[in-house]
């Protein structure tokens, strides 16, 4: 099983030692509390911190998912003593990395970083998501020419995500691969929309055509967010088949909207978002697409290295801003009201260890 890094290597030793002491008890309660939960799509290993971490201000400088620059930091070791959670037996997995019937098992294992991870660089959302499988650039689905898709590749050094951004189906494989020359992890990153993610969600509705039947998105959203209580159906959310949420990005001039229902997991969502917003991260894209591969990938690199990577957050039903990726996908789509792509430097509070918060949550 893959192991993810402990999320926070900047916490004060004081807090960490407190947690170290407390961890067995916490872990015990965790097992009790979370036992009935299915943690299949739980991307973030760190349940202990609280499986729904809240952003706090002022934010700490951090890669949101808590993966530090030092991937070799011991799994479960070091200051993150509390992360010695093998004993707690709660297993969290990344997509594709477990067999479907893992729900019977309750082991907690910390996930390793994906292979090919290059230390020293911060990773963004989709890196963390797709721990399973080798990351390689999506092979060219159409055309052999490798080009920088307008939406692709430059948001992150990963291959161009193939999820459609214009509301198209999340598994569209029609985009050209984006190879970012000069970027690190070439050949190591794969973003295939549903490759490797064969673990099905709850039986999905049959594939929907974009914009058909012709129902206004306002209506769809309204019906989806205000489900009828008259029909007695199992899940509260009516199958209006879509759930549009606004996505804003710090510094971008306008919002986009994505339909969460067309994505099956965080990886697809992140791919689509990267594609949608890559233009902004590069600043002046020119009026049509990306000017040049090299120049941009350089600045892209600089961005990464300077730590101005973007992190993805969402506002949940209670109005709190959370990091995306903490909870199972279904829970996320149920509670997500809107998304926001923040600069990593702004999302400093993410992952900050706060015993009070943790304890309040757990107890």
């Amino acid at each position: 099983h893959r192991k993810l890094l402990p999320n926070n290597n900047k916490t004060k030793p004081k807090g960490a030692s407190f947690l170290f002491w407390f961890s067995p008890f916490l872990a015990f309660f965790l097992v009790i509390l979370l036992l009935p939960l299915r943690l299949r799509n739980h991307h973030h290993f760190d349940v202990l911190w609280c499986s729904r971490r809240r952003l706090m201000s002022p934010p700490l400088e951090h890669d949101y998912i808590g993966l530090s620059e030092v991937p070799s930091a011991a799994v479960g070791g070091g200051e993150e003593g509390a992360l010695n959670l093998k004993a707690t037996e709660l297993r969290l997995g990344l997509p594709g990395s477990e067999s479907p019937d893992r729900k019977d098992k309750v082991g907690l294992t910390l996930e390793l970083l994906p292979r090919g991870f290059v230390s020293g660089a911060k990773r963004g959302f989709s890196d963390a998501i797709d721990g399973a499988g080798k990351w390689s650039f999506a092979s060219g689905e159409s055309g052999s020419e490798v080009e920088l898709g307008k939406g692709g590749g430059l948001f992150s050094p990963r291959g161009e995500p193939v999820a459609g951004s214009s509301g198209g189906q999340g598994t569209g494989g029609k985009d050209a691969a984006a190879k970012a020359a000069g970027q690190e992890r070439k050949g190591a990153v794969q973003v295939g929309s549903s490759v490797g993610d064969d673990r099905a969600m709850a039986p999905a509705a049959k594939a929907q055509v974009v914009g058909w039947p012709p129902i206004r998105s306002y209506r769809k959203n309204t019906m989806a967010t205000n489900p009828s209580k008259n029909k007695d159906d199992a899940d509260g959310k009516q199958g209006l088949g879509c759930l549009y949420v606004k996505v804003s990005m710090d510094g971008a001039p306008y919002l986009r909207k994505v339909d969460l229902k067309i994505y099956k997991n965080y990886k697809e969502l992140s791919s689509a978002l990267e594609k949608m917003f890559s233009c902004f991260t590069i600043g002046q894209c020119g009026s049509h697409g990306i000017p040049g591969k090299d120049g941009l990938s350089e600045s892209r690199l600089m961005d990464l290295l300077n730590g101005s990577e973007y992190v993805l957050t969402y506002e949940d039903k209670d109005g709190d801003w959370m990091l995306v990726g903490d909870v199972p996908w279904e829970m996320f789509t149920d509670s997500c009201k809107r998304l926001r792509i923040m600069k990593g430097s702004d999302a400093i509070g993410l992952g900050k260890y706060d015993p009070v918060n943790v304890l309040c949550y757990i107890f």
Partner: protein
Amino acid sequence: MVRGFGWAAAFPDEVWEHVFSFLAADADRNAVALVCRAWHRIERRSRRRVFVGNCYAVAPAAAVRRFPEVRAAAIKGKPHFADFNLVPTDWGGGAEAWVEAMAEGWPHLEELRLKRMVVSDDCLELIARSFKNFGVLSLVSCDGFSTAGLAAIAANCRNLRELDLHENEVEDNCLNWISHFPESFTSLVSLNIACLEGDVNTSVLECLISRCPNLKTLRLNHAMPLEKLVSLLQRAPQLVDVGTSKFSADHHPELFSKLESTFAGFKHLKSLSGIWEAGPTYLPAIYSVCESLTSLNLCYATIQSPELLKFVSRCKNLQRLWVMDLIEDNGLIAVAASCKLLQELRVFPSDPYGVAPPISLTEHGLVAISAGCLMLHSVLYFCRQMTNAALLTIANNRPNLTCFRLCIIEPHTPDYISQEPLDAGFSAIVESCKDLRRLSLSGLLTDRVFKSIGASANRLEMLSVAFAGDSDAGLHYILSGCKNLRKLEIRDCPFGDKALLDNASKLETMRSLWMSSCSVTLGACRQLALKMPRLNVEVIDERRGRPLESWPDDFPVEKLYIYRTVAGPRSDTPPCVWTV
């Protein structure tokens, strides 16, 4: 004997202005303006209402310059298919250019109606500050603004009569924007905040309602609980148009009787909407208003058929009914029997993605309505099955149809009895309904239906086509016929270059053409753009990043939007849009 057009000088300008004031239709005024220079001058100075169907068809400054005395403007932005997420969110349709030009040139503007445009808070603030006598703001299907912008409107528009927010995407960052209406503000006649998601301060709203004696329309949003709704409505028994909030709550006899008495107090209520999540518990409380209702909008109300039937069949004077398909065929048959004055029917799908078992709403419901409601002229109907025979019957029953929009949910669905395409049925509709102005097709259709449409639909102004046709001939039939066609929108049809190029000049007589997922190539677009300089040919492609110039002629165009314009290519195209 006065030569040439000298007779125009026989009367002073004011007389002609007065004569022209009887011309309501813009088309008539346009015709008048072409007669002679004097009339052109007089007409343009006296035009008070301007309708801009496509915000990019003319430069804002030009419009403002031409008609300096405008008091009411209506502007539309994005193409209709933007409602179904086919248009990228950054496509355009920003209102700033227009609002700035209007602020400069039309300081006396009183009414502004925007549809499918991107309106920012800055725009709203500019509107609030620039027009001293501003009275009516209507935003339909717009986005880009928040309640902070609304607060600016509330605070500064002293004479605001109408604030109509219909199905917009509004950010909620100013919770108490309603309290920005000053204490001295009493002119409100119509308030529609149904699309706001956040809570509205009920007590502030109550004060506002109490001090506005002319309030006729009040549409509230979903968030308000039923008890508060009742106490609000009690303050305004003069209301003519009410949009309620949530209509469900645990059963309380007191609440029930309060609701009942409140609604019984509405002596003038004609229009009812909202009723989100209505349950059988509270619906009977409002039976008292049914008789007087002329417009009923239950399209968000997931009431099941028996209660729905009971409610709707009491509304004997109903002219407009919007309802969910939960009404089922039985319900529609009952409506056909009781609502003899019905003019407009819209039936929306409660479960369009087929997750739940299908409702028993079929073609029979529509046939019954067409037989029973003699004044029916406008239909929007979502269903899962249809036959040619049913369409023929409808066509024969209701030759007075002006708007017929049928959406069979599954694409390419044939006549379920004969398994044939629905060509015959739709042909009957266009041949029988001579005044048909708007038509939306669905189901399995070949080129034959387009032949009929091209030949018979002489009054047709707007046509929506999806998943239909066999070849270019289909598009050719439409473009070479349909004399009055203004808007054509097509998706997922095998229409290609030839028909488009052969009928290039037709496109200048239309407002716009939208084609997505068809078989048009970039080469044809280039040829078209060369041939017709007064068209903007916009190629929309969100997948690629390379500039348009480098793509070959046989590159398939994903989405195409063509519209006539005198303003030239627009300057605010986003990266995914190229003006060829």
